[in-house]
């Protein structure tokens, strides 16, 4: 049942080709970001992670664009929850690198933050959570029973030039 690696592994290789001076990953990928306004607090691990995510976004966006007759994409709309494991600033920086030499070179990435919504049994209703660190009902402080929203990492929409 051996198969070739699915994207984003393939996309990483594509990126590697696009940046031949980066002889080694992932250290040199990070170096590519040296002049790209990566916020200080966003560490090296995060950049490599978000680069994989950015490449997956482009793969899914490319499929969707092809399905719609290859109309140029002006913007990619993404929904990101705090429990997705993705840092917005790092993803935006990674996206800028990943989109180069692709059909999305001039497409914007627009990120919508999704709040954490839990099901609270004591309230009997869906409620916002206090935070990712305190997964409790913001109304009655009971521990969360179930996470309804907050794990999203979803390509929500494309803005087509038409």
């Amino acid at each position: 049942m051996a198969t070739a690696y699915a994207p984003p592994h393939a996309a990483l290789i594509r990126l590697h080709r696009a940046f031949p001076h980066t002889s080694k990953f992932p250290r040199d990928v990070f170096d590519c970001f040296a002049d790209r306004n990566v916020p200080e607090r966003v560490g090296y691990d995060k950049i490599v992670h978000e680069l994989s995510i950015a490449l997956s976004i482009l793969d899914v966006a490319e499929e969707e664009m092809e399905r719609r007759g290859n109309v140029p994409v002006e913007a990619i709309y993404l929904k990101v929850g705090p429990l997705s494991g993705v840092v917005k600033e790092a993803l935006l920086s990674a996206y800028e690198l990943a989109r180069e030499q692709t059909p999305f070179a001039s497409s914007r990435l627009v990120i919508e933050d999704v709040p954490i919504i839990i099901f609270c049994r004591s309230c009997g209703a869906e409620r916002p959570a206090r935070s990712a660190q305190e997964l409790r009902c913001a109304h009655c402080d009971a521990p969360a029973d179930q996470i309804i929203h907050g794990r999203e990492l979803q390509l929500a929409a494309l803005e087509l030039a038409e």
Partner: protein
Amino acid sequence: MSTTPRIVEVRQNVLKHNDEVARGLRKAFAEAGVYVVSLVSSPGSGKTAFLEKTLTLLREKNFRPAALVGDLATNNDAARLARSQAPVKQITTGTLCHLEAAMIQSALADFRLSDLDFLFIENVGNLVCPSSYDLGENLRLVLLSVTEGEDKPLKYPTIFNSADVAVITKLDLAEAVEFDHAAAHANIQSVRPGMRLLELSAKTGRGMDAWLDLLASEAH
């Protein structure tokens, strides 16, 4: 060129390709009757020692376990696990900071799933990246050693949230580092209310029975 933008809904998970492969794996595991456990933690949390002990104990009980080990560059972990006599395969991730479902699928080519009872997947030591990727596992463990500090769950809530069981390791060192059990438990429950929790030492074997009991009850 003047254009009028048009917004079309897509609603696709960014990691849908990984999720599709993971679904296929989960189905193949179920059909072969293999119970699959993945392990995530920081580097140095004791994943390999814990896994070596687990493999050895399971083999003593006449189970047939195997392991896949993700590592950035070396095969040291696989070599250590091979001492348990269980089949072990290394996945060198090289460019990636985490395992993806397609890597598991490729690595499984060397195993006959029907010959196995348990498959363990040791992810790359990293508390950030592995949280996003489904590997088709039945149970995900997050390991936290007593030497790491009780506030680690608060710093990395997402990985604790994506895991099913928290395992506090290196219990034999707890006293020496003045590990605050109550604070660690409270922090884990804060980021994931109701999370199951084990404390153990792979070195002394303390707590390993409770872990194997949990494994047995989950697998059946």
